[in-house]
């Protein structure tokens, strides 16, 4: 008798074995003559420069932090979802169980939605875009003269 987690383990093992077999078979089948160009890291045709580990924008960190907290919230939803619609428990309490569990989870999620609303309203979720640099041209020719030229020759 295999338990449910045994199935998961079997899936993991079979995935690893299949991947290993495929890579091994491919290694025997494929031609193998590497050179320096082929071995370099593919970076959209550019020569790779420097370390691959670059600094990220701090905004990713805030989003990741909020994600972790909502993931913890999600974890509480799983045991609730298993017992929420349980017919045995509903029958024992004349239907009060379902409404009670629903109300409790609404309160739980409502409290956390306050946090999301706070982060949203305070602008923690806003993405900072770099300022666009509009090129400024100081031309001695006034702008309406360009417009006249465009009107005269643009239609052709």
């Amino acid at each position, binding site marked *: 008798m295999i338990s449910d987690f045994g199935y998961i383990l079997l899936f993991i093992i079979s995935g690893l074995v299949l991947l290993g077999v495929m890579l091994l078979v491919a290694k025997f089948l494929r031609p193998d003559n590497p050179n320096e160009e082929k071995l370099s890291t593919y970076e959209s045709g550019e020569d790779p420069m420097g370390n691959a*580990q670059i600094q990220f924008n701090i905004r990713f960190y805030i989003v990741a932090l909020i994600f972790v907290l909502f993931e913890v919230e999600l974890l509480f939803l799983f045991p609730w979802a298993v017992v929420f619609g349980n017919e045995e428990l509903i029958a024992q309490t004349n239907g009060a169980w379902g409404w009670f569990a629903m109300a409790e989870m609404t309160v739980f999620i409502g409290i956390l939605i306050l946090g999301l609303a706070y982060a949203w309203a305070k602008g923690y979720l806003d993405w900072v875009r770099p300022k666009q640099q509009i090129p400024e041209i100081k031309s001695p020719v006034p702008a309406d003269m360009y417009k006249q030229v465009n009107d005269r020759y643009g239609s052709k």
Partner: protein
Amino acid sequence: MEVAAFYGFSALAILAALFILFSKNLIYGAFALLLAFLGIAALFVLAGADFLGVAQIMIYVGGILVLLMFGIMLTQRAIQQEGPSRHNRVEVPITRKVWGFVIGIGIVGVLAKIIFSANFRMSGDAVSRKSTIKTIGVELMTSHLLPFEIAAILLLVALIGAAYLALNRNPAQ
């Protein structure tokens, strides 16, 4: 079969932890931490705590490890003149090393005390195969309702505090 799985996952967790200890590259250490977390989650499952195992995978592997990676990426100093083969060494002053050593020894002492005072049973009742998630759900909705709602408040406080602290208030950037 289960004994083999237990020793396999224990070896995975311990080897990954040793790799973290001796690795000079922080990113490799973070990826080894992934393996260590997976091994520990499997040990939880083998001990009959299936919900804890899934929670371990979801929160630690899916969330906290990602945060850790971001931490490594964000705190790395911009040294560009060195090549891509450079190790990501952590350079700390000697006083912090001493304090870290003292605190590490202290934690090991506390954990050793707990392990030696614990009363492990090497044999006896078999671990029941029933899932614990239904029990946890009923307990959360009945006898542990107040802690459940307090957990929501705690998460709210953590969310607001974390977002407030993580905001970049440096006007230079």
